[in-house]
Each structure stands twice: as C-alpha cells, then as structure tokens.
C-alpha cells in the first residue's frame, strides 16, 4: 500500500474465558496517585 502504512495491528480484547477475572490492579487516575491509567496495565490472567 503506497499511501497507507499499518503501525498497529488489531488486538484481541475479549478474554478467552469470556469474562473478567477481576485480578488486575485498580487504576486511579487522579493527579496525586499515579497508580495506573487503564490501558497501560498488564493483564494478571496472562502473566
């Protein structure tokens, strides 16, 4: 493709179990906490 360059492929977001495991870290976004924003976390289920 001359005019289009793919940077990121599609990602699968639905867990294979079909449901959330509830193990991942909570993600407070407030200025004083900096624990984690939602999308930079790793998934506990696949660790």
């Amino acid at each position: 493709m001359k005019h289009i360059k793919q940077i990121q492929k599609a990602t699968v977001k639905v867990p294979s179990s079909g449901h959330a495991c509830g193990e991942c870290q909570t993600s407070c976004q407030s200025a004083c906490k900096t624990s984690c924003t939602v999308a930079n976390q790793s998934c506990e289920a696949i660790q």
Partner: protein
Amino acid sequence: MVHAFFMIDRHIVYDSDSGAFFELDEISYDVIRLYIDGKGQRPSVELLNDSVASHKTSILELQEICDDFDSIIAEGTLFAAPIEYDYHHLYPDQPRIKAMCLHVCHDCNLRCTYCFAGTGDYGTGHRSMLSVETGKAAIDFLIAASGNRKHLDIDFFGGEPLMNWPVVVELTHYCNENGPKHGKDIRLTITTNALLLDAEKTAFINKYMKNCVLSIDGRPEVHNRMRPGIGGKPSYEPISKRIKAFVERRRSDESTYYEHYVRATFTRHNLDFSEDVKHMAESLGANQISVEPVVAPEDCDYSIHESHLPAIFDEYEKLARYLHGRRAAGEPVNFFHFNMDMSNGPCVYKRLKGCGVGAEYCAVTPEGDIYPCHQFVGVEKFLMGNVSSIHSILDENKHLIEGKDATDILDQDTLQIFYDRLMPNRESCKTCFARYHCGGGCAANRYFSTGSLDEEYRVGCELAKKRLECSIWLSAASADSQI
C-alpha cells in the same frame, strides 16, 4: 469508532474497537475522512473527483486508495464491529474491594497550595496519625472484603506517610505475614513528598514496596510556588536532593522493585510543563515521570479552564517530541500518561470499568473511616463505614464467620451508588474514541468540578483524548525510526 487526526507531522487513523492504527499521507487522509463522513462506505466518484484537483492526483490513484481501505475494512481492522461484551461478565462473582488507600497520617510537613487534602488534615482542622491497631483492622477488612481475589493493593498515603514511619513499617510486616496466610499477594505502594526520605527509609521502601510515588513539581521556581514548606519556606532543595538519591538507589541492583514515579502537578501557572518534565529527567535523573493537571474549583487562581486547553495540547505535543528524541537517543523516559500498551493491554472489561471507586477501591482514614476513595475523604455523605466493625464478623483466626460478608459493615446505599457507576454508560463515553483507554474518567473530578458523579468533566475528557493521540503519535514515530 474511527478517529482520524493530524498531529505534528503525521496523519493518523485509529479504530478504537480493533485497536489498530495506520499512518497516512495527505491524500489517503482526505480519503479516510470521506469514509468517516459516509460511516465506512466507499466514497462516490463525485466526492473523489473533488479531491482530485486539490491533491493534483488522478481518480485512478484515489480508486486504488479506496481499494486498499476496502480490504482493510473487510478484514475488520477499520470500521470494526463494536466489541461484543456482556456487562454481566464484568465481575466473575461481584465487585470486590481489593485495593485500599491507607491514610497513615492526616498531617503534612508541606503546605502545598493546591492540596485537596487541605494540607494534610482533609479540611477537618484536626491533624491525626493512624494507630497500628486501626491499620491492622483496615488490612483485615481488605483481606476479608476481597473474597477470592488474590492480588490486593495498599497505598500508604497521607498527608505525608513518612511522618508516621514506625506504623508504616509495622503494617508492612503485618501485610507480609497475613497476606500469604489468607492466600493473598498484597502489593504495597507509598506516596510521599520525600522531605523525610533518608537512607534507611529508602532501603526499606526498596525492599518491600512494589511502587513508590515521589512528588516534586519540576523546576525550582514552579515547585516552590505551589509546594512551600510550613511558614512558606522553599522546599525544592531538600526534596530534589532526596529524590535524586532515591531514584539512583531504586534503579540499582540493591532494590527488589523497580517501579516508581517522580510526579508533578501542573497548574495554570506552568502551562509550559514540558520544561518541568525535562527538568525532572535531566536534573533529577528521573526516567519514570508523571505530570498531571491540577483539579481545583473554577475560581482558584491556579485552576485549569477550557480556555487553557489549546496551550496544554501544544505542550503535550512538545512533550511527545521530547520523549521521542529521548527514545531515539537511547535514553527513554517513560511518561505515565503516554505510556499505553497499544499492542496488548488489559481486557475489555478492565478497560471499561475504570478505577473501581467505592466498589473495588476504598480509602481508610487514621480514624478508620472508610470512604470510596482518597478524594472523597471528608465528604460525609459518602462515608461508608468504619474498619473497627470488622472485628464483629471475623473469628479468632481472622476468617469471616460463616454467612458473613465484609461488605456487611458498609453502608449499603453508598455502596450501591458506586456499584452502579462502575461502567462508563454515559452517552458521551459511548461515542468517544478514547473509551477503551480512559475507562470513564475520574468520578471525583466530575463530582468536585460539576457537583455530580455523572456529569461530563470536559477538561478531563479533552485531556484524556489528547494524551491518547500523543501515545499513538509516539508509536508511529517510533515505528518510523525503528525504535
């Protein structure tokens, strides 16, 4: 949802449902905009003809671009079908409180102008310290409330937690002894202004705390303006010295854990905050940095208004360029808000449920009072209970008495308010390209800026969207330079 944007030097199209993104040239960018206007339909020849002249191209070339987009669409990468999820699968059983902000001290040795905690006492006029006994009850409550969740988080918070250090030490050991007994992995964090950070405390934190958040506002004049000591004394010098020393040791082999953030708050007074990031990276040696907007009442002279957004957007772009330059030079700086895992990241449920305020996360004060999160501490209508009640439902081995649930000690109406707000069902979120990265934003920001837990906090939303664009831009720039 498909979002096309131009930033700095790149035309980009991103699909929030598939998570894929592409870099385009000017011609294909105009073509994708026609697709977006047509909700994913191939543009008509008439529409394409209008573009021919403006791009000095041929209709044939535009048709070829459309062919490429059509095949990308057919494979489900652009204009992807909305992700199918079922909110009933959000929690395997029910939401479980599994993270706690433990206020070991409602007192502080700084007098930061913007402190939401009323410079430590949370507006009560009463400065207090957590006792070991109340701290242990809080940990017992968390373990009991977490049900079958294994990974628990506790953040030692304040005021300034180092002012009550012996209690932090004792509670750390209590977690390490009692977590495994109940099959829990309790991960500890401490959030500090670093003023009392010495070699001994550093060694302890590096041995036991999975994460450590250190506050400094960047350049000396910026820091001293908003983060003075008691009596207005400048605090930059002692704090910067201690943070520098801490960061060095945290990154050395002596530390069990690496995760840490040197963090700042920016206000209307330093909308050029990329200079503060540079200062933290270059003068303090920090490579894990977070700089976040203050949330304050509209009428404060340092609060951020919608009119500041264009300047902040420019600054974020400047910052993205700087971070890219550091990466390219082999000296990467991890900027918290641009650090999004584009190729992996958590599952859709995690992405949608956000912070878990009051349902998965709570804050406990030195008096043992339980609130939905640290920002709501002191808002009486959201008081959920007190950890001292936990003793009545635990046996001598600290196991729940049969038939009891730890959340029984919480005010059920308040709990329900926060259960009901776990998912970003607001209309504005449903149609937002940032929804799988934002998680629905901060309920406390909404509450304190609009008076409602649900009302859109526009400044917060616009910033969240801009940060996502910056993260995508950085990925594209890195891909180009193969870093």
